[in-house]
């Protein structure tokens, strides 16, 4: 907190401590609800803001679970935040207030018991996060903020249509009334409403092709807010999809329409693969992480979509429960490791001022805590055992496999396609994080900022360590987290809770399938595997490190006899080159090489290289939409007089026409 007035410091610290206290309180409350078994969900009536709508908060199992997700990352971000803002921020007080409002709105969205509260909190969440995105006044941030605002409001518009249609039928705004109104609708309307809701929430969750704002806006915010936006805000949008798909719009009995589940599943598969492919070509550390959020939202949607497909029907559906538990576990896992990675990237940013990993390097020796915690997060997000990312992907794989067998035919094949996409995603993520970690933290520093970096202060490390512990705990003993999913899965799918299905053989063993549905179970014990791994590593370490007479020495890295410099190190661009060529159809890579030669063509004076890859969604869809919008705006310009009373006239005419058409007698 150097160079800021003491009052600012105090306000920032107090604000973050309050947020931390709120997170801890929220976590305690949510856990008590989740542990509450069949008790009725806590319900709280709010003061009547509008004459036509009751407002209330209601916390059932699904809400409580998402509150836990919010609380976990918020706690870490609140510990991390003050030091980070002290080092970096242009407007720390504003950012602290916006952060508190942002977190509070996210919690309120989860707890909302009616449409009005939901929409108000949803809008508050968008605006607070927008303030944080543009709080660092720079041209690119302002552009990112504008795009974010447009996309978010397009999504909200879709949600408004859904809510108002339901409210129109229900003549009330609370969720119970909406639910029963939806049951009265015919199947086609309900499907249309679900697709609209999916688009609305998908725009917020970053589902392909609605993801383009995400990699621009998330990195622009302060890093602990990026962690919250990527780790939590996307989950709030997923909460909306869960709430609508499984609860509000679901038929009174029987399975959900098949088209819902398959749409979600296929969108999820596409998001997973496209997100990670685009992430691979990013050199901006925070933008790379933001693209990975698109990937992970995809993975969660694969599980959710499968649960929709398998759920319903007669009797308990352990496979649907397994799929939903996998999706929920991945939600929690992604919050933990993506939060950790963003905080790590923020630690690098705070100490070097650089986000471009080509200019970093060699940080592991200068910032060891940040580096090793980031590596832990990298292993977790790459779905490598023994950390938590592997566990949820394992469960998703099992659900896809066993579900594929049960469904058979073309549906089974689609499940197989999703499984192969998921497998490809894991490999791509591992390659991406080998690059991100290796180029940022290993080798030699490639700029003086990186060379003179120092380790971040203890509170920032503590924030990262908290999330790292969550990654380890969820990886080694995931069985103990399963009771968290009992209430949500039982509420959304009926039948057995998650822990009855997944940890049928005790909390240390995960089982998939189970004798319940006739298919045999597969069981793994992450605890045993990790213990075995640790034991063997210790043994190998002792054997290979045993003192011997032969000498140990240090020497420069072999570079064919030349003196090694930082320019020998492989860059991120070079690392990703093979993939750029293999997946050229997706990337459409462009590169331009300018040579300036001297008197002879063999003497190079200067060589300039520029290369870029495109986001196909951006060039194929958004560029055209933008073009169309611009053209239409030009047309409309003819009629715009620039005088204010002219516009008031337009508004008045529109209002009158609307009232004449839609008003009820």
């Amino acid at each position, binding site marked *: 907190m150097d160079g800021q007035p003491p009052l600012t410091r105090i306000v920032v610290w107090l604000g973050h401590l309050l947020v931390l206290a709120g997170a801890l309180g929220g976590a305690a409350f949510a856990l008590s609800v989740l542990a509450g078994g069949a008790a009725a969900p806590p319900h709280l009536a709010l003061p009547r803001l509008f004459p036509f709508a009751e407002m209330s908060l209601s916390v059932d199992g699904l809400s409580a679970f998402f509150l836990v997700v919010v609380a976990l990352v918020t706690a870490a971000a609140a510990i991390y935040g003050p030091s980070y803002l002290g080092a970096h921020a242009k407007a720390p007080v504003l950012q602290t207030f916006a952060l508190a409002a942002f977190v509070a709105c996210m919690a309120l969205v989860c707890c909302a018991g009616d449409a009005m509260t939901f929409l108000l909190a949803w809008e508050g969440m968008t605006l607070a996060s927008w303030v944080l995105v543009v709080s660092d006044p720079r041209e690119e941030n302002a552009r990112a903020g504008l795009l974010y605002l447009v996309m978010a409001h397009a999504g909200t518009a879709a949600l408004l249509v859904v809510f108002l249609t339901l409210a129109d039928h229900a003549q009330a705004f609370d969720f119970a009334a909406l639910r029963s109104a939806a049951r009265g609708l015919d199947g086609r309307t309900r499907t249309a409403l679900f697709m609209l809701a999916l688009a609305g929430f998908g725009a917020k969750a970053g589902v392909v092709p609605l993801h383009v704002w995400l990699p621009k806006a998330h990195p622009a915010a302060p890093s602990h807010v990026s962690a919250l936006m990527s780790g939590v805000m996307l989950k709030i949008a997923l909460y909306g999809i869960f709430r609508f798909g499984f609860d509000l719009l679901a038929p009174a009995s029987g399975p959900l329409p098949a088209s819902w589940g398959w749409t979600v599943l296929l969108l999820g598969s596409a998001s997973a693969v496209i997100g990670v492919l685009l992430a691979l070509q990013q050199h901006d550390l925070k933008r790379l992480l933001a693209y990975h959020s698109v990937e992970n939202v995809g993975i969660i949607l694969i599980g959710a979509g499968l649960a929709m497909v398998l759920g319903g029907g007669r009797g308990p559906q352990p496979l649907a429960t397994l799929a939903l538990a996998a999706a929920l576990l991945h939600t929690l896992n992604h919050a933990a490791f993506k939060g950790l990675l963003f905080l790590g990237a923020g630690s690098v940013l705070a100490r070097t001022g650089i986000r471009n990993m080509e200019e970093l390097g060699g940080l592991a020796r200068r910032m060891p805590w940040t580096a090793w915690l980031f590596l832990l997060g990298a292993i977790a997000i790459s779905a490598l055992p023994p950390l938590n990312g592997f566990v949820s992907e394992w469960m998703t794989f099992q659900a896809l496999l066993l579900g594929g067998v049960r469904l058979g035919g073309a549906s089974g094949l689609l499940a197989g396609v999703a499984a*192969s996409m998921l497998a490809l995603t894991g490999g791509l993520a591992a390659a991406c994080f080998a690059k991100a970690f290796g180029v940022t933290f290993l080798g030699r520093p490639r700029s003086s900022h990186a060379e003179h970096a120092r380790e971040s202060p203890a509170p920032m490390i503590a924030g990262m360590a908290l999330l790292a512990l969550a990654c380890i705990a969820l990886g080694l003993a995931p069985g103990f987290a399963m009771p968290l999913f009992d209430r949500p899965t039982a509420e959304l799918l009926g039948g057995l809770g998650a822990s009855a299905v997944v940890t049928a053989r005790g909390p240390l063993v995960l089982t998939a399938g189970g004798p319940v549905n006739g298919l045999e179970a597969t069981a793994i014990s992450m605890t045993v595997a990790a213990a075995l791994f640790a034991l063997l590593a210790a043994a190998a370490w002792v054997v290979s490190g045993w003192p011997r007479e032969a000498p140990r020495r240090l020497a420069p890295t072999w570079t064919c006899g030349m003196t090694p410099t930082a320019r020998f190190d492989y860059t991120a661009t070079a690392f990703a080159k093979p993939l750029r060529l293999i997946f050229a159809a997706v990337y459409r890579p462009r590169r331009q090489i300018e040579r300036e030669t001297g008197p002879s063509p063999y003497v190079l004076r200067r060589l300039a290289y520029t290369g870029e890859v495109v986001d196909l969604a951006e060039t194929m869809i958004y560029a055209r939409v933008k073009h169309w919008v611009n053209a239409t705006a030009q047309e409309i310009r003819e009629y715009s007089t620039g005088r204010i009373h002219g516009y008031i006239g337009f508004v008045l005419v529109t209002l009158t026409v609307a009232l004449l058409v839609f008003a009820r007698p």
Partner: protein
Amino acid sequence: MERTQHIVRIATETGLLVLLGPLVTGYVQKLKARLQCRRGASLLQPYRDLAKLLRKGTVRSDTATPFFRAVPALVLAATVTAATMLPVLWAPSGPALLPVGDSILLLGLLALARFLLAIGALDAGGAFGGMVASREMTVGLLVEPALMLAVFSVAVAAGTTDLGELAARRDSLAALSWQAPDLLALFGMLILALAETGRIPVDNPDTHLELTMLHEGMLLEHSGPGLACIALATHVKQLVTLTLVATLFFPPGLARGLAPPEIALALGAFAAKVLLLATFLAVVESSYAKLRFFRVPQFLGLGLVSAFLALALRVL
């Protein structure tokens, strides 16, 4: 009592894979030499190399972090943990007391070893480390999904991804007797095994020319006992890959009990399967040229497509 017996079984099987790993490499090298009309080194040469490396001193890069020294131990540990997942001699009777046998976990642990090795290669700095790490991760991400699909195509028929269960049921279930999907999956698996064991036409284990190597390039900065660990891990990984193919497609011969003749039979069957597959590696390696790196995706694509078709045929 039963638990102890189970642990002893797993330890025996893993020990067997670790001890025999170098021998399989020796056999492949010997056979290749004979096919090329050379006499070749002794079958035991890999053991001698390991013993020599263990006695040697170490030279460490001065840019490397302390993590670099831990990489060999972690890579070896991940590979050996993966080896525990395989049934080598015994098929499980009833649900396993210690659930270590999952094929997804096996592939995940091999991926972990690959990831750590690539991190180690980047750690020293220098262009070779970065280049091979990039290539190795690229090959890895093409191989892994295809391997998973091949495994899944067998697993969906058995309803489990537990390798022991899978092998045990392959004898008893009619659905698991050889069918077209098996042939396709085996074909894909053999292609992928070439890549996973780092052999021609994907990689060349004998090369020390920087521009052509994949796996070897990641070992450039390792030396002494650390290099021994990684070399052992490479031998074990090769045997693990071969045993995985054998488990999925040639499961008969696994023992059920502890009677000596039964165990002898299981050992013989295991040796025969591994010898057959190792011979395949040696023959392919002697009769093909190494592919250019950017041809490799097409070659692996063949494996991916056949594995996917196998899965599709099985599910439809």
